[in-house]
């Protein structure tokens, strides 16, 4: 079975600093993968290279078999990217925003409309669909951006810190949506600092530091590495990251 994402020997340097260092990563189709790591570990840089926003210095990236570097359009059609601070158009309404995003991915209005309705209703934004996003709260903006990321029904959804700054109710809605997405066969990669979220949602977890993957596996596998069945993800994380930093 083709992997949702295959990254091989991916390297990116900014001047003298190596942000991503010969990274190998495989995300299976239909799984939720959490990428954890301290600030500056290379999580966002990796995701930005997968989306084609940054050109890697070396290595290869394949999204469902499509080469991101040589055939970016085919790869981009299959993925969606939600940055930690998504850019919405202030002067567009939520509905217009979704129409525009659907258009960018080549989805015609007739197909996009029922999908947009479903997403907005699920996220509790249906009543606000004709309001301009300039008046939205952070949570509403985040939900609108998430709906935008899902409007073209991507096979691989990548989210960078999707729960930062959201209140509990909104965070729950986002988590429910991600779980529903995975149940229906979609693949999700998320980076987060909230270890609890990774612990509860992720099928597999990768811990990255200094641009290198320190450890990867299910929670049980990671616990095994940390040498304790009762260890929490926080224990495992701190143990690995502490060792990595040392």
């Amino acid at each position, binding site marked *: 079975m083709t992997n949702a994402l295959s990254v091989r020997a991916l390297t990116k340097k900014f001047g003298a600093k190596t942000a991503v260092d010969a990274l190998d990563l495989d995300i299976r189709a239909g799984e939720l993968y959490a990428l954890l790591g301290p600030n500056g570990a290379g999580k966002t840089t990796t995701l930005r290279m997968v989306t084609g926003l940054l050109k890697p210095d070396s290595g290869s990236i394949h999204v469902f078999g499509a080469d991101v570097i040589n055939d970016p359009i085919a790869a981009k059609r299959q993925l969606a990217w939600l940055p930690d601070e998504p850019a919405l158009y202030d*002067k567009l309404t939520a509905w217009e925003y979704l129409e525009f995003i659907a258009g*960018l991915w080549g989805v015609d209005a007739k197909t996009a409309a029922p999908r947009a309705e479903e997403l907005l209703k699920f996220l509790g934004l249906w009543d606000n669909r004709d309001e301009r996003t300039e008046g939205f709260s952070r949570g509403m903006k985040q939900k609108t951006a998430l709906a935008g990321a899902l409007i073209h029904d991507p096979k691989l959804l990548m989210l960078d810190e999707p729960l930062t700054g959201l209140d509990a109710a909104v965070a729950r809605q986002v988590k429910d949506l991600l779980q529903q997405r995975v149940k229906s066969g979609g693949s999700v990669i998320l980076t987060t600092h909230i270890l609890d979220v990774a612990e509860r949602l992720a099928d597999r977890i990768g811990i990255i530091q200094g641009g290198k993957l320190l450890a990867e596996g299910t929670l049980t596998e990671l616990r095994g590495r940390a040498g304790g069945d009762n260890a929490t993800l926080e224990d495992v994380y701190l143990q690995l990251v502490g060792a990595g930093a040392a």
Partner: protein
Amino acid sequence: MFGPGGVLFLLSHEMLLTWRNFRASGKGRHVRRAVFYTFLTAALGFGGYWAARFLSEITPEPNVMTLGIIGGALTILFSLMLSQALMLITESLYQRGDLDLLLASPVPLWRVVLVRMSAIAINVGLFYLILVVAVCVWLPFFGGWAWIGFAPAVLLLTLFATAIALVLARILFAVIGPKNTRVVAQILGSLIGAAFFIASQVPRFSENESRARAMQDIFNAIVPVVGNPSSPLSLPARAAFGLNADLAIWAAIAVIAFLLAVWWYAAGFSRDAAAIAGLGQRRKINTRAARAMRSGVRATLVSKEWRLLRRDPLLLVANPSAAALLRATHGRVRIADQRRGGESLLLRRHCVCVRADRDILRGQPCLAHRLCRGRTRSHRQRARLSR
């Protein structure tokens, strides 16, 4: 081209945003706005009517004088358009936050750049085009068909100015880097835009006789260049004389220049956009404030106060002692003044500009305990006095 993600789809999105931003920028009630636009339309209508009537009485002959005057007017327009386009191009990279969204989508990069630059060209040319069209709509009524080419000539001038601005922006990015490009492009844009105004003011500083001579010299210098019928520089002016071969050549040059510039600009667009997002190479910051930051709490505070005073000189009026205190404290104050609650005094001296930052400073680990000690001491003194 017409479907979702096509050029027209993206262009209509850009135009919608431009229109909504334009509407949001206008303040005032609907009635006031309606009156303003009615007045503007009427003014354009009447102005266009009289201008068209005047022009129709002149038979356009492509001689040096006529070509020179039209060419001069187009050169002024070109400089204004170039200035505006340069500013809009840098703004489109630095201020619009949607680049990540567009570049992460499956829309080809050249299409994103083409649409964005076309929107800039439309933004730049729209004002001038409205003025020209206001005249051109009346021309057929007075038999002034010969002047009808002025509208397409101005439209093409917009494309050409945007192309040159794109090339300039790309060169600036390559030579001085994305961080400096913004400032330099704004300065350059302002200078180009103001060039003719500045040039026209130069003779004012000389005496009357020499002023007239200077004006004559400028006129004599410009007219033969842009008015020479065989010179390529007079092509836009010749194109403005009507629907002729010169207009076709001018159209071909402007469109090809625009497309080539877009293609060249697109080649480095994603790299430049990434660099602007702060993901490119980073230099060590070595400003005075950064040096002060590295050299301790007191230097940081003094540096902060100076910066606030520089940015808002009104603080000096609000607190007349600010300058004197800062001068006294800058590099001379010693923390050793323990007997009179020296540290809290030091903190007070350093916070003359903004009282509200006390909370931030209290949270600062080095100063928090000093401030508390100073406070406790002054409380004790007050208690002693009250007894």
